[in-house]
């Protein structure tokens, strides 16, 4: 391949990517006009889960902090939104902000201890936090309704005094808009100088330290940011399900989010959204058709994803390679 052709191919890639992104956005926006209410509900769940996965991707893929505890801020955000909806206000965006703050608060409370650890120990500590928060949700009946969960969450409204959103299509548009805004913010963070610092910490923390960076602060900051994203995702989940229970804080949610990140390709953010779609589809569409053998399929998807998608759908390049 001549250098001129190579250069043209390299220049064409970003343009192609932009066109693909634009087409995907248009398709996503048109969904409510094309599909039935049940499918729109499912896609709404996909979007909420995608936001959780994107936040986790920032934490794990970009910053190199693998977490099996993202269900904790997700659930805290969901409970915050549900409690707000039942007792204070049904305005969706308000619940969203409150949930994001709640998720960030949880992350801030434990993060300053957790990010001192690395690798597998960090993973285990996030698992511990996840399990402890799960137990708390199960036992703190007065606030969380205990193991029966919180039912009767009213439908959200889009602005104070507005009509409750009952149509699946309208709810989908709200969730799509919210996810685009939040994911967009995360994407900006990932592309900024801060994002580059995070990647530096991921690839070689000692070298960053020897270069004079304080690695604790960026790690703590991204941990809180991922917590905020998870909390926001939780409020969107509740907006659709109108029910939250300790099961939403379980280990399974954290593991599925991590699977979504791996399928999608770590570090690319948009890949995590695609991974989330695959995970939710397999769980909700494919598994019930197999009469109880759902976990088997999910396990096979795990194994296949790890082997066949070494860098996920997004195929991120973490280093410049010599091969074209």
């Amino acid at each position, binding site marked *: 391949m001549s250098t001129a052709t190579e250069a043209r191919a390299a220049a064409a890639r970003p343009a192609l990517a932009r066109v693909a992104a634009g087409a995907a956005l248009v398709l996503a926006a048109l969904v409510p006009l094309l599909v039935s209410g049940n499918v729109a509900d499912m896609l709404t769940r996909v979007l909420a889960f995608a936001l959780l996965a994107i936040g986790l991707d920032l934490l794990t893929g970009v910053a190199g902090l693998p977490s099996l505890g993202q269900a904790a801020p997700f659930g805290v955000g969901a409970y915050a939104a549900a409690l707000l909806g039942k007792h204070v206000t049904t305005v969706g965006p308000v619940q969203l902000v409150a949930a994001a703050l709640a998720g960030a608060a949880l992350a801030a409370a434990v993060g300053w201890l957790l990010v001192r650890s690395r690798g597998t120990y960090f*993973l285990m500590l996030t698992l511990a936090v996840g399990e402890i928060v799960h*137990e708390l949700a199960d036992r703190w009946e007065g606030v969380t309704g205990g193991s029966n969960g919180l039912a009767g969450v009213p439908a959200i409204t889009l602005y104070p005094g507005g009509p409750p959103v009952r149509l699946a299509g309208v709810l989908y548009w709200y969730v799509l808009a919210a996810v685009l805004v939040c994911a967009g913010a995360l994407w900006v963070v990932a592309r900024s100088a801060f994002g580059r610092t995070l990647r530096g910490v991921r690839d070689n923390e000692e070298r960053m330290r020897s270069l004079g960076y304080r690695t604790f602060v960026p790690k703590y900051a991204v941990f809180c940011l991922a917590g905020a994203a998870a909390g926001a995702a939780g409020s969107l989940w509740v907006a659709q399900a109108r029910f939250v229970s300790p099961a939403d804080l379980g280990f399974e949610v954290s593991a599925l989010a991590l699977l979504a990140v791996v399928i999608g390709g770590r570090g690319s953010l948009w890949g995590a959204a695609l991974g989330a779609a695959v995970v939710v589809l397999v769980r909700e569409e494919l598994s019930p058709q197999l009469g109880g053998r759902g976990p088997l399929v999910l396990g*096979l998807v795990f194994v296949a994803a790890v082997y066949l998608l070494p860098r996920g759908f997004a195929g991120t390049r973490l280093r410049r390679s010599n091969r074209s």
Partner: protein
Amino acid sequence: MSWLGGNLVTIVDGVAFGVLLFTIAVGLSLVFGIMDVLNLAHGALYLVGAYLAVRFVGDGPATFGAFLAAGLAAVAVGAAAGAGLAVMTRPLATRGHLDQALLTLGVALVVDDLLSARFGNDVQSVPPPAFLAGSVSIAGREYPSYRLAVIVAGLALAVLVYLLVERSRVGALVRATVADAAMVRAMGVDTGRLVVAVFAFGVVLACLGGVLGAPVLGAYPGLDERVLILGLVVVVVGGLGSVPGAFLGAMVIGQVEVLGVSLLPQYASFLVFGTMAVVLLLRPEGILGRAGGVRGTAGVVPRRMGKPG
């Protein structure tokens, strides 16, 4: 002194539980030490051992022979499964430890579901061997003889593992590989086969743990998750890659789960993870873990060999 008398049975039970946890955790610790692989399928393999006990002992006469058969089957199945897992995770060695961990998680789901399809979702119970079915009296209270037998068997296993790892040539090679794999390879030893052997050994221990623990814990879907979490906590508390650490961690967690629950019942749900969190915050690499020997599990940086100090 009367407090001790009143709680003696509980303390003894904590030892029994701890010894059972050790058989599960030591394999996990060894595999992580030599390969940096967090084998999340370990709990599922324990469950395989438990179901082997169901298959061979089942409702029928609980003879020692049946248990022996189950044990031998556990060794065979465990060795095959361990070798298989080692081979499966090998291609991922350059890709970071998160991939390997997720692969084993996938395997765990598959194994769990296959067991459920084969044995059903009902809770299965395994009677202890007939001569151990009774109880003995400890400090005036009854205590099942089988659990005492578990202590004896588990301690024997611990001694065996200790001798193998600390006193044999193979063990020396294993420890050397954990510390500096490149150097061992430079000496002409095929670390690849060593890794497979360690993996197989670790999984065999998990399966044997399943057979040993079946009369105590039974076999049912979901038990593997509980066992895995306890095993992970033990390994992390004791220090990843350290056999004495696994034993110490197992003893600590065994007492926490039993004596701790007895003393602080209202916090029972939080004790295990709370202990782990406290230990990690005071000593981030675990009680007997290697200081500075922690490697990241994300990222695509090639495995570092023998990080300094």
